[in-house]
């Protein structure tokens, strides 16, 4: 049942991704349309449990904008009402609602409600989100802050340290080890005699061997057995050498075309990627640390593996190559056996680390194998707390504004971020949204302009007037037009994106937003920044 129900997503994140999702406990603060739209995608995906915290009651406006309330629930507690309708989407998920005023909560209160793996705040004032998230950030639990305001959406991912174990990069550059072939690959290559091949045999030779042969000839020409093409010109020589192998001027030789096409992508020295080196350089990746976090333990094992061999474990994900079945199968087997062997060694190293740190075996053989397969793409993201955006981050944001310029009807995206802060200031002072007091809009436009000047004044940027001048009046008017407008479509769009970011943080697959996103639904363009 589970296999069929989740079939279309298992094809993306695999059984291991699904298991992580099913183990997740996610807390959503708020129960408006943005909150329930996030909840919807997460319940459908099959997360372990969801808790919705909210202190409001279902109003008529909720019924017109939120799909997870029905007319009969008018006046009921929102968190529980939404939980009951979300629960219907998937019986395997535990969905519950908690009645609490979010504005009165501290981070500790939220942590006390459950052992959450992720907390998502919806439509809070930023100052509120900053206070609330601080203890959650300190506790190492990732936090997503998101908002909708009229036709503007905002998402901020905040995780002290996030591990990316599988980027699921489409079409990754093949890891051929051309400069450092392992013995099994060399043995296969040595069986081939390019001089003695007929056309039939040649055209069924996998292109990796054509690359190896061309490299061999390149080295002979250079009279340097270690030579390796470094420049575009040298890679061009390789292309010519490959072409010289042709039996038929390239006609009916798909493998030759594939080899030529692969030169620029694959003829690179096998190095340790900088994102992996960054992990090795971390204090948590040394023998002095006592951490028993499985990620850091296996990374330390990886570091030792690299110290021993100079290279990362071989990956057995090989692209398809034109070839006869047997040659390809033997090639693939050579990579598989080597990958298997490297993974075995990595598992031994990992067990040693676990033993030294006094833990039981936390990393399974299967997990170790998967880790090795993607070891080139392992990375960490170090995030900042939301409160950073109120302090140093804010200086950067205003700096960005002072150098921004919009084009035509396009307002620079940073403008909307600044306006969200100004609208918060308006709300804090006036206890209402701009544009909602029933008097001519121009009054609130002037007041909101003042708020823009005030929040800019909070920064340490020198050119404050220039910065303020870069917020066009029409954008301020637009914010007053939005006022207390939270259209369902904006919530649905932002909700969908936030749910997927939550899946990334939960599965350690793909690459999360780093770290602020603004979407302006007039143009539908997105903008990513990190302040």
């Amino acid at each position: 049942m589970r296999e069929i129900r989740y079939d279309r997503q298992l094809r993306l994140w695999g059984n291991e991704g699904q298991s992580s999702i099913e183990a997740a406990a996610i807390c959503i603060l708020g129960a408006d349309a943005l909150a329930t739209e996030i909840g919807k995608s997460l319940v459908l995906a099959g997360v372990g449990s969801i808790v919705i915290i909210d202190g409001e009651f279902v109003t008529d406006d909720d019924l017109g904008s939120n799909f997870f309330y029905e007319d009969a629930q008018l006046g009921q507690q929102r968190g529980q009402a939404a939980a009951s309708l979300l629960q219907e989407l998937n019986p395997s998920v535990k969905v519950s609602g908690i009645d609490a005023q979010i504005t009165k909560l501290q981070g500790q209160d939220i942590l006390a409600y459950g052992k959450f793996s992720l907390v998502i705040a919806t439509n809070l004032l930023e100052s509120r989100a900053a206070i609330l998230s601080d203890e959650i950030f300190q506790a190492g639990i990732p936090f997503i802050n998101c908002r909708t305001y009229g036709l503007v959406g905002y998402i901020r991912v905040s995780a002290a340290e996030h591990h990316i174990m599988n980027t699921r990069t489409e079409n990754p550059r093949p890891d051929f080890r051309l400069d450092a072939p392992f013995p099994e690959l060399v043995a296969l290559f040595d069986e081939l005699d390019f001089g003695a091949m007929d056309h039939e045999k040649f055209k069924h030779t996998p292109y990796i061997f054509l690359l190896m042969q061309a490299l061999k000839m390149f080295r002979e020409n250079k009279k340097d057995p270690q030579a390796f093409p470094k420049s575009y010109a040298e890679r061009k020589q390789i292309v010519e050498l490959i072409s010289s192998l042709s039996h038929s001027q390239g006609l009916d030789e798909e493998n030759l075309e594939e080899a030529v096409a692969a030169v620029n992508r694959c003829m690179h020295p096998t190095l340790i990627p900088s994102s992996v080196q960054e992990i090795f350089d971390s204090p948590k990746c040394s023998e002095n640390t006592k951490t028993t976090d499985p990620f850091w333990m296996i990374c330390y094992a990886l570091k030792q593996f690299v110290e021993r061999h100079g290279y990362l474990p071989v990956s057995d994900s090989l692209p398809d190559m034109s070839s006869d079945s047997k040659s390809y199968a033997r090639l693939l087997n050579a990579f598989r056996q080597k990958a298997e062997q490297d993974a075995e060694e990595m598992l031994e190293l990992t067990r040693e680390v676990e033993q030294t740190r006094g833990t039981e075996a936390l990393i399974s053989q299967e997990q170790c194998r998967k880790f090795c397969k993607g070891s080139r793409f392992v990375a960490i993201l170090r995030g900042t707390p939301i409160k950073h955006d109120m302090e140093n981050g804010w200086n950067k944001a205003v700096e960005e504004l002072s150098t921004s310029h919009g084009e035509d009807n396009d307002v620079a995206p940073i403008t909307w971020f600044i306006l969200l802060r100004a609208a918060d200031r308006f709300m804090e002072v006036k206890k209402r949204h701009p544009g909602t007091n029933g008097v001519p809009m121009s009054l609130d436009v002037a007041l909101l302009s003042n708020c823009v000047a005030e929040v800019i004044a909070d920064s340490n940027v020198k050119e404050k007037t220039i910065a303020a001048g870069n917020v066009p009046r029409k954008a301020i008017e637009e914010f007053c037009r939005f006022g207390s407008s939270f259209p369902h479509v904006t919530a649905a769009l932002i909700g969908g994106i936030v749910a997927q970011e939550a899946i990334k943080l939960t599965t350690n697959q793909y690459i999360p937003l780093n770290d602020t996103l603004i979407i302006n639904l007039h143009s539908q363009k997105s903008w990513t920044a990190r302040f």
Partner: protein
Amino acid sequence: MSTSVENKSKRERFHAIRRLCENASEFATQYFSPGPENLQFIREARILVIGAGGLGCELLKDLALSGFGQLDVIDMDTIDLSNLNRQFLFRESDIGHSKAEVAAAFVSRRVSTCKVMAHHCAIEEKSPAFYKQFHVIVCGLDSIKARRWINSMLCDLVEMSEDGEIDSSTIIPFVDGGTEGFKGNVRVIYPKMTACVECLLDLYPPQVNYPMCTIAHTPRLPEHCVEYVKAIEWPKEKPFDGESLDADRAEHVDWVLERAKSRAEIFGIKGVDHRLCLGVLKRIIPAVASTNAVVAASCALEVLKLVSNMAMPLDNYLNFSQTDGVHCAVVQLDRNHKCLACGENKAVMHIEPTATFETLMERLKEKFHLTSPDIRVGTRPLYVISDLMPELKETSEGNLIRPVSELIDGGVELLLTDPSLNRALTVQINFAE
């Protein structure tokens, strides 16, 4: 609650949309005039949602909660367990029922201000008059064929005035969404005015087709083994009393799986399992709830803009991707004035007179993305395969091996019909020397 109180209460709804409709904005189109009549127009507009699947379910919800009061939805499919990870209007007890009917009933029940009318049938079964009644049409389809069909229908509905100008009142704007995994796209099309589906046919990635010689002689991937059993062993061995292969039937899939496993064993190929086998047989496109939610919301927003003018519509193609960070990028794509659907609708192909008719047919299929065309000159059939006219089969197949010049003169116009076209296509064949 008495009816009058209830009505008053429902008027309180759509506060968000009312603010956008009733306040002036420099971001609105030139046709926008703020006022309550905009929401009234949204309430009364006739919108057709094509497809009640992953995008369709979201679209119905999004439109109903944007104030639309009358929606129609058309879909010929029934509900399957594998839909439930994203098609949130369906429950396990709905499996086997019509998607359009269950979705329409659910949204009408949940959102009391909206009535959804279901059409459980193929889009091809509806007449031009049916499509003409809508103000905007929004598509959440997973098939290129169906997209081309509706696109061509909407292009044909555009009428010309006597002086040869487009009668803009006959244009039905059309919003099209598509998803695959964590990627998606949205486009806004004014038929005959802006780039249409047919103009941009090359944007779709080519279907993965493994060469027959690889499948038959040099299989390397598990997919090759499944394709072999499907294309060669099934037609040859005619299991299950000669039934055609149906990937929805477990016993058929198991048969293919067993055979594919044996073949993989022979060639030393690993990785043939049930999930892979089903993926190949059904050409499954991976899908998650979140991407559908994003793309559908973007489409629904565009419908709202088109109906109310409260903001500038998308101009005109949005690419969405969320594997590495989040990206929403917009590009302007141009019309192809030789487009078969919205352009001159006259195509020319050059061919050597000595080429076989089969070669000509293959080139026509490739160039115009056809699946199984029938070809005529005027009323004379050159290649027509139909159960209704079995007597034509032999001549048609005989024609395939003959040189083109034996069958037609240079400059002759061929008439092509195909399941992916909603009307015949005329192609002039010129002989290249």
